[in-house]
């Protein structure tokens, strides 16, 4: 069976749907991305290397990828619990909570950034208590992490929710009749079933956070070497008409994100393979 000529099927449409997929992906995703690579190719290899490894840039990678990773990680337990509560319990206001989860999707990220800054700044609602206690959030990497956690939450909730919905309560009941505690039931019965969805949710939240700009720039303070994220550096370079420099950073960001997402996919495939 060749890739493009599958066996005769009662449900035709493979050729058409694959054609649409390829055309659409090329137009919407691949074409702009390759433009980035073409633009960055204006550099000689040495220039490119220098542009993407200056100390200021390296610090921004650490912050961007590090804070994104931690934010996605924090969203996993929180997102699973949220999805669990929304599926398994019925309480007044459940639909409102359900709708609230999607808000970070809809909100212009700058609005989120301004709101978060207002809360965590020295004179903000929470900042005024946290800062005297020695816990500075705004204008530190923790602020970046808070903003990235905010934008990533819906991804975990919305990927885990449908899978959890499909898991019959009978599985939990069966475990309970066999004497399992709630913890054992979760870790040994529920979690293995939810794991693929959790990993996907994590990957999406992470990818979103790496590219996030609007909500971060207000709360981070954008101090070079400390609280400057890579997307901001790109904007800065663009404002200085350093188009090649900006695209070089974009290439690193792209390749980095793609590699990580690919690794997560492979890990996913392997854990699934181990089950079968």
């Amino acid at each position, binding site marked *: 069976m060749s890739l493009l000529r599958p066996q005769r099927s009662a449900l035709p449409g493979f050729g058409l749907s694959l054609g649409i997929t390829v055309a659409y992906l090329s137009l919407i995703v691949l074409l702009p991305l390759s433009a980035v690579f073409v633009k960055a190719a204006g550099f000689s290899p040495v220039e490119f290397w220098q542009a993407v490894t200056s100390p200021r840039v390296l610090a921004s990678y650490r912050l961007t990828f590090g804070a994104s990773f931690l934010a996605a990680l924090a969203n996993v337990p929180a997102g699973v619990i949220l999805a669990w509560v929304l599926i398994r319990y019925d309480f007044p206001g459940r639909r409102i909570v359900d709708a609230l989860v999607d808000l970070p999707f809809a909100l212009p990220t700058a609005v989120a950034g301004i709101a978060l800054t207002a809360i965590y700044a020295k004179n903000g609602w929470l900042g005024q208590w946290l800062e005297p206690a020695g816990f500075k959030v705004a204008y530190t990497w923790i602020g970046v992490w808070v903003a990235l956690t905010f934008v990533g939450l819906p991804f975990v909730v919305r990927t885990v929710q449908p899978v959890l919905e499909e898991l019959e309560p*009978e599985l939990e009941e069966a475990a309970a009749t*066999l*004497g399992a505690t709630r913890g054992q039931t979760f870790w040994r019965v529920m979690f293995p079933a939810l794991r693929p969805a959790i990993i996907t949710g994590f990957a999406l939240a992470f990818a979103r956070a790496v590219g996030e700009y609007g909500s971060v720039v207000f709360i981070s303070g954008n101090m070079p070497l400390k609280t400057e994220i890579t997307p901001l550096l790109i904007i800065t370079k663009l404002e200085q008409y350093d188009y090649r420099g900006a695209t070089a950073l974009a290439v690193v960001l792209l390749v980095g994100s793609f590699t990580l997402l690919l690794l997560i996919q492979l890990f996913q495939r392997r854990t699934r393979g181990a089950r079968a």
Partner: protein
Amino acid sequence: MSIEVKNVSKHFGSFTALAGVSLKVESGRLTALLGPSGSGKTTLLRIIAGLEFPDASDDRAAGRVLFHGEDVSDVPVGRRGVGFVFQHYALFRHMTVAQNIAFGLTVRPRSERPNAKVIAGRVEELLQLMQLGGLGGRLPDQLSGGQRQRVALARALAVQPKVLLLDEPFGALDAQVRKDLRRWLRSLHEKIHVTTVFVTHDQEEALELADEVVVMNHAKIEQSGAPQTVYDRPASPFVIEFLGNVNRMAALAGKPNATGKDVLYVRPHDVDIQRGQAGEHSLLARVLHVFSAGSYGRISLQRTDNGEAFEAEIARDRLLDLDLQQGEVVSVLFRHVRLFPKGQLYEADVTNGQLSETAPGYRPAHGSGEHI
């Protein structure tokens, strides 16, 4: 381990699932909870298991579940010592058959947990008992429905439960597999003798498999007793209609008893067909259709006096002798009829042309809502 349920009620919102139900299951028996969907049978089973709780009541003696005389109403499900088998198996799909069966043992606290060798031995033993030898390494998705159900049973039995509870255990299986598994479960019960309660809506299943049948309807127990008893001495119109085929028709004055407008029940196998005129205890009916492909002949008939249709079942050789023609008018004799005037069973037999009636109250019927 005997089970006793005392005056249990359960509501889900405005729906009454159980209305003051009491039940006693003797130790080592195989008992069927039989009823249509919505009759409360599954709720009762889940309350016995501890997966559902009775409504709170002011009466302290009400809403209790006792195992062997000991009140377990407040014992959580994991400590009640019940094995529960779900209709859709509820197997853990990411675990192998062996891991599924071992689950109940491996989740025990370290101090009570048998070592890996003992667990493996127990799993192997159960695989043999369930005729699943060699399938321990498979995943549930790689098994047939009947095999999955047996894995679920093995998993429940692995923890050596005091009571085995099965919710529609054969509900999701093909007719042939159901039959095989039913017989197999009966023989398994002979071997292990664990007090077992199973829920079913299939009267044939209940009558064939159980020592004791509890017929439920509308949140109450209609009747309970041995299969023979509930079949031959139904306590209510519901029971006679639910258990086996029965013809339901208006009883006419003078034929074959004179109780007036009440409804008359006659089983198809209690209908005899003869040629000739209507006798003292028989009536005339037209033959609508004859089905002879089966272990007995099935004839649909229509009464000539009021047009009611009914069915008769007669032996095949008798059917050959009669050589019934479609549209022919024959004489029909009801050998055994039942009526339920004022909630009481009233029976009449016709043998050799003689009518013998059983007066109401003569055979004490178990009124509806009574327990065993």
